[in-house]
C-alpha cells in the first residue's frame, strides 16, 4: 500500500513542474493566505485555504497521506475558484492558481477522480464545443435576431462571408445563455456605434477551451492548439473578447503554448480606447451610484484594473464608489475554476458575501464586465434578497450611448425570435 502511495505520488510529481515542486516545500506556513481566501471566509476549514492545499499536495507527492487526508485534500482542491488571491498576498509568491490547475491535471493523469459534475461538464464541452450542450449552429443566432428586432445599426457579418480587421469573440455564455446574450448584442451595438469594422465567427466560433485548463483536463493542450491554429489562420488584426474567462484563455493560457501569442483585447480595453479617441459618444447621463467588481480572470489573472474604471469614469452622471476590497484584492464571486460545479452552495455564499460588501459602499448597482461574474453576483442577490442591481458594464455604457436598448428588451427580442 505504502509502495502504491509512493508510486502514485511520483506520478503526481511528474505532472507538476520542478518549480512547483519547490513551491510545495517553500511555503512558510504563515497563514496569510487564509485570511484572504474567499472560500475559507465561507467555510473555515484548514484544508480549503492555500496552506492546507499545499500541505495536502506535499503529502500526496511524498506518498505520506493517509486515506482520510487524501480524500479531504481531493475535495478541497476542487472547492477552490483558483481566484489567485492567495498568490497576491503570499509573501513567498507561490503561483498558487497555476499550481491548482496543474495539480488537477496531474491528479487526473495519475488516476485520481475529480468531482462527477466537473467530469460531465468537461465531456459536454468537448462533445458540443460549448458549455451549454447546444448545437453550434445556434451560436450566431443572437446577431441575426438582434438585427431583425432592430437592436443593431447594421447586420453583424460572419467572418466566413467577409473577414474584417476586428474579430468579436462572443464566447459560449454571450452566444448561448439566454440570460446573458444581451452582452453580445450590446457589445456588437457599441462597436457599431464607434464605427468599428468587425465580424463574428458565428457557428464557426469554438469554445475557448479555457474551462478545460481551469479544471485540469488532459486534452487542453491539443484542444487549445486547434483554436490557436484556427484563430491565427483568420489573420485578424485584433480579437476582442467580452468574457473575462475567454480573455484569460485566449490571452493568457494560449500564450504559454507554441504559437499562442494572439492579438487579443478584452472588450473593456477596446471601449476604453474608443472612448479616449472620441469615437464612442456618451450622450446620455446615467444617474446611478455604482461600485465595480473586478473579475478574477480580468484583474488578478490579466492585470486589467484601470481600463474598466476609466470607462465608468467617462459615463456622464455616474457616481463611482470603490469597494473596500478591489483591484488585486477583489474578493471572488465563486464562479471560477469549476467551483460552482463542485459545490454550488459555496458559490452562492461567496456571491452573497460579495453583494454584502457592495451594499456597504452605499451603491445602488454593482457593475462588472464579465457575464460569468454577473451570474455569480445575481446568485448572491437571490441569496441575500438584496435590492442591489447587478449590471454588466455594457449595460451601463448602453444607457449612455443608446438607452433605448436594454437587457430586458434584448432578452424579449431574442426569445421571440426563438
Amino acid at each position, binding site marked *: 500500500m505504502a509502495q502504491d502511495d509512493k508510486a502514485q505520488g*511520483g506520478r503526481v*510529481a*511528474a*505532472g*507538476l*513542474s*520542478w*518549480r*512547483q*515542486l*519547490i*513551491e510545495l*516545500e*517553500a*511555503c*512558510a*506556513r*504563515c*497563514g*496569510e493566505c*487564509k*485570511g*484572504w481566501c474567499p472560500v*475559507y471566509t465561507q467555510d*473555515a476549514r484548514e484544508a480549503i485555504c492555500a*496552506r492546507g492545499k499545499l500541505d495536502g499536495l506535499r503529502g500526496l*507527492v*511524498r506518498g505520506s497521506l493517509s486515506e482520510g487526508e487524501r480524500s479531504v485534500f481531493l475535495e478541497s482542491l476542487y472547492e477552490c475558484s483558483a481566484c489567485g488571491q492567495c*498568490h*497576491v*498576498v503570499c*509573501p*513567498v*509568491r*507561490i*503561483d498558487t492558481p497555476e499550481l491548482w490547475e496543474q495539480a488537477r491535471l496531474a491528479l487526473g493523469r495519475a488516476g485520481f477522480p475529480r468531482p462527477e459534475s466537473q467530469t460531465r461538464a468537461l465531456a459536454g464541452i468537448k462533445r458540443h464545443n460549448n458549455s451549454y450542450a447546444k448545437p453550434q449552429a445556434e451560436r450566431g443566432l443572437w446577431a441575426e435576431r438582434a438585427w431583425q428586432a432592430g437592436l443593431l445599426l447594421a447586420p453583424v457579418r460572419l467572418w466566413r462571408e467577409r473577414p474584417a480587421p476586428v474579430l468579436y469573440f462572443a464566447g459560449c455564455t454571450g452566444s448561448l445563455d439566454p440570460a446573458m446574450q444581451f452582452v453580445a448584442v450590446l457589445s456588437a451595438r457599441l462597436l457599431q456605434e464607434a464605427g468599428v469594422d468587425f465580424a463574428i465567427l458565428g457557428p464557426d466560433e469554438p469554445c475557448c477551451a479555457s474551462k478545460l485548463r481551469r479544471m485540469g483536463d488532459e486534452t487542453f493542450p491539443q484542444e487549445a492548439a486547434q483554436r490557436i491554429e484556427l484563430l491565427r489562420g483568420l489573420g485578424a488584426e485584433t480579437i476582442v473578447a467580452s468574457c473575462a474567462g475567454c480573455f484569460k484563455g485566449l490571452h*493568457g493560457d494560449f*500564450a*504559454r503554448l*507554441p504559437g499562442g501569442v494572439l492579438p487579443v483585447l478584452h472588450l473593456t480595453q477596446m471601449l476604453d480606447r474608443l472612448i479616449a479617441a472620441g469615437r464612442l459618444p456618451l450622450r446620455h447621463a446615467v444617474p446611478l451610484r455604482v461600485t465595480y467588481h473586478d473579475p478574477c480572470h480580468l*484583474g*488578478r489573472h490579466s*492585470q486589467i*484594473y484601470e481600463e474598466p474604471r476609466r470607462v465608468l469614469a467617462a459615463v456622464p452622471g455616474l457616481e463611482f464608489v470603490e*469597494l*473596500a*476590497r*478591489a*483591484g*488585486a*484584492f477583489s*474578493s471572488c464571486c465563486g464562479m471560477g475554476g469549476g467551483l460552482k460545479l463542485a459545490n454550488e452552495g459555496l458559490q452562492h455564499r461567496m456571491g452573497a458575501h460579495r453583494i454584502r*460588501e457592495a451594499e*456597504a459602499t452605499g451603491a445602488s448597482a454593482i457593475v462588472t464586465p464579465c457575464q460569468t461574474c454577473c451570474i455569480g453576483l445575481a446568485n448572491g442577490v437571490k441569496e441575500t434578497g438584496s435590492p442591489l442591481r447587478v449590471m454588466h458594464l455594457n449595460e451601463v455604457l448602453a444607457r449612455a450611448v443608446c438607452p433605448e436598448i436594454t437587457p430586458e428588451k434584448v432578452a424579449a427580442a431574442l426569445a421571440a425570435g426563438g
Partner: protein
Amino acid sequence: MPGSVAYTKPWAVLWGAATLALVYVVVALALKVRSFARGGALPPAPRPAPGRVAGIWLAEVLLQRQLLQLSPLRWAAHLAIAWGFAGLALLSAAHVALPALASVSLDGGAAAWLLRGEGRAIGKAWGNAWGLVLAAGLVLALLRRLIAPPEKAKEGQGTKEGDLPLVLFLLALTLSGFALEGLRHALEAATPERAAALRPWLTALWTAHGLGGVGLVAWLPRSTLLHALLSPLVIALNARGEHPRRDLYWPKTTRHRAGG
C-alpha cells in the same frame, strides 16, 4: 592571545556533532533536489528584463516589501530574524572558511588577524550586533504571538500553531550566546578562585549553545525553516517566469484590506 580566556571547550564533541549534522543536511537537501527533479519542465513564459527580476528580488527578499505592506510589526520581526540569521551565518562561515583558507595560505593573514589577533574585536562586535538584531526580532515575534496577536491569529488564521516552540528555541539559543559572552567577560575579570568556579559553567553553556546551533542546522531540511532557503529561490523563479505583473510586487494592500 588578546581577548581570549581559557576554559574547556569539548571541540571533539562539537565537531563530531557538526560533521554528522552537515552530512545529514547535505544528504537531506540532495534528496530534496532529487525529488524536485521529478517535476516536468517549466511552461514557456515571457522573460522580463534581468534588471527587473533583480529589483524584485532585492525588494522582496532583502527588504521583504510584501511583509511591510501586510503588517509593519510582522515585517520588523521577520526582517530582524532574517538579517540576524544571515549576519550570524556569515560569521560562522568565516570561522570555518578562514582557517581552511589559511591552511593553504590563501587567506592573506586574515584568519590570524580576525580570529585570534587585533581584528577579533570586529568579529565579536559583528556577532553581538547581529545577535542583538536576531534577539529583537524573536522577542517581537514572541510578543506578536503571546501578547498582541494580529486579528487573524485571534481567529485561528495566523501562523501555524506549533511554531511557538521554534521561536522559543531560537530565542533560547540566541540568549545563550549572550550569556556565553557575559560569562566570558566575567571570567576575564575574575579572581583565580572565582574563575575556577565559572569555568564549568562556561564549558556547559558553550556546549549547549554549540549543540543547539548544530541541532538547528540538522533540523533545517525537516522544518518550516526550509523556507528561508527556498522562498528566495521561488521569488526569483516566479519573478522571472511569470507574465510581467504590475500588481503583485507592490500592491496597495493596506488600502484594500479593510474589507478583509
